[in-house]
């Protein structure tokens, strides 16, 4: 690889999806879990995908990695890895990518680790498969990995079973497994949700640090904007299978466009708030993926909804900066937005969303 290649490979996206659609056949009909999502992640970059349950964030990550079952699933659009189309690879072809190129961390380490297999083996097996190491080499490496993820007395852990470890340690083990073959792309699916608050931060620390050291790209799936805030370069907010706002983290927080994003933000616990204060939860339920509402999918729950929203679906709009896009007719900051705010405040309905009393 020449310098320039290297530079280019730095610039051009490592993973890119173009209008990816993932639909499930259900008895009730077609569920549009992911409905035309285009994202890009460059080498060493991290993208946070944020949304409520059922927003399609998990499905998106799995679609990219090609982990979804073959039958009963309709896939469209293209997924590119290093510029090559991998969207239509068979499981067999993906095997060469899984582990070595891409890896994934799951939400619940208890259910995601094989309960009847020793930790050491669970880590080493992918080393042996992908890097063709011998059993002993692999174990040695595994021990090192455990050490890297800060597990005390790694040597002993190798011969323990998952149920003998604490929740945090299990998650570290899973990270070790993911790291094992030095993947370029790491998917972390709600890596901290199942853990208690004290450990969450540590794990996220560990993740971003590993990412840095290994110059990995990271796709961090979570329902909690607060989580991604500190750890991602860019954030894509998903709702009802679509990306509704995408921007570099700072921009997103500073200059929120999408009312949904605003709502999410307002549901992050903030230190500058009196602890007794009540958090806003967004009224209503996420949209039905089988027959989604006509028009803007968030409209039914949107405080600033207008007729247009209910009838027409908004396209992706450019915000001030080119890397900031959103789907909304009346984004935060628009005249209509303020107009409606005033009404609401008068009715006193916005108190909650202001989070003050």
């Amino acid at each position: 690889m020449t310098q320039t290649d290297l530079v280019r490979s730095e610039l051009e996206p490592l993973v890119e999806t173009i209008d990816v659609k993932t639909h499930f056949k259900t008895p009730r009909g077609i569920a549009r879990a992911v409905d035309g999502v285009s994202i890009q992640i460059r080498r060493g970059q991290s993208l946070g995908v944020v949304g409520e349950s059922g927003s399609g964030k998990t499905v998106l990550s799995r679609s990219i990695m090609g982990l979804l079952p073959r039958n009963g699933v309709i896939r469209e659009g293209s997924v590119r890895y290093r510029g090559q189309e991998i969207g239509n690879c068979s499981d067999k072809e993906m095997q060469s990518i899984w582990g070595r190129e891409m890896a994934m961390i799951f939400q619940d380490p208890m259910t995601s680790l094989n309960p009847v297999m020793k930790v050491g083996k669970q880590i080493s097996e992918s080393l042996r498969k992908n890097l063709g190491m011998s059993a002993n080499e692999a174990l040695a490496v595994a021990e090192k990995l455990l050490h890297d993820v800060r597990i005390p007395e790694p040597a002993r852990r190798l011969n323990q079973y998952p149920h003998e470890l604490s929740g945090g340690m299990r998650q570290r083990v899973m990270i070790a497994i993911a790291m094992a073959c030095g993947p370029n792309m790491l998917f972390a699916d709600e890596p901290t949700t199942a853990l208690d608050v004290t450990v969450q931060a540590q794990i996220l620390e560990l993740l971003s640090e590993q990412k840095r050291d290994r110059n990995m790209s990271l796709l961090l799936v979570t329902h909690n904007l607060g989580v991604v805030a500190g750890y991602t370069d860019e954030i894509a907010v998903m709702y009802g299978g679509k990306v509704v706002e995408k921007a570099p983290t700072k921009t997103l927080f500073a200059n929120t466009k999408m009312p949904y994003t605003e709502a999410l933000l307002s549901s992050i616990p903030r230190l500058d708030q009196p602890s007794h204060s009540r958090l806003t939860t967004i009224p209503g339920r996420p949209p039905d993926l089988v027959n989604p509402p006509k028009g803007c999918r968030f409209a039914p729950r949107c405080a600033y909804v207008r007729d247009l929203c209910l009838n027409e679906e908004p396209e992706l709009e450019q915000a001030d900066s080119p890397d900031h896009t959103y789907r909304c007719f009346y984004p935060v900051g628009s005249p209509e937005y303020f107009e409606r705010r005033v009404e609401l405040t008068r009715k006193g309905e916005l108190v909650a969303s202001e989070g003050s009393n």
Partner: protein
Amino acid sequence: MSNTSVTAAPEDIVVPKKLGFGFWLCVIWVGLMAFIAIFASVLPLKSPTANFLNSAQGRPPYAPSWSHWFGTDKDARDVFSRSMYGARISLTVGFTAITAGFLIGGTLGVISGYYKGWIDRISSFGFIVLLSFPSLVLAILLTSLIDRNLLTVSLVLGLLSIAPVGRLARAATLQYADREFVLAARQIGATNRRIIIKEILPNVAIPMSSLALLGMAVAVVAEGGLAFLGFSVQKGITWGGLIQLGSDASKTLQNAPWIAFFPILMLFLTVLSLNFAGDRLRTFFDVKETTL
């Protein structure tokens, strides 16, 4: 979590609950058999015991023909009508056995599940003891001790079903014994008998009853096995007995397979129907697999 449920493989997609065509087909077959079993004597069937010797055809067994649809056995007896009459003992035994098993085993199970304590320990141990004989061995042992008629054989097989049924009933009862509504009933000072009958039984009965068909299938097979070995009802026609008659001597089986195979067919279809229907019912009420 809801996310993963979306990514599920097809099996996971909830199939709307219905019993389905196959189920009714099986029910019809079993019903037909039952009907024949009950009304065999009034139906226009040949006598199952008469020897239809026919010098023109030479020495029996006679192959299936228009006059004998399933052919005749070595004694020139009509295999068709014998197969029909065979349903009698086989089904009666199967039915009586499982009924007895459910009455006794069920009661024991519910009581020990409800009262727990020493009653539970004793009956549970009894169940284990019963279960530590391989059932056929126990069946042979017992039937060899008794004068084998319809009732006694049924009871023996009933006894065999006590343990599995009992354990099941016990397990089911345990689930409910500490439920709110039971505790509530206690609060308002309802007697145990009342609680068992009014609160527990209805809840236990449904899943149990869905296993009755499976149990009956087992009993029918067991009876067949006993008859096949010569341990079933002495003076009577049973499928197992017919099969034994047709297969005892290699020559008979080789030259006149119909003697054994038609009864086998009847037995098979009946057991299959009972199993299938039972299985459907079980999934319908989604009850756990049983050791019956």
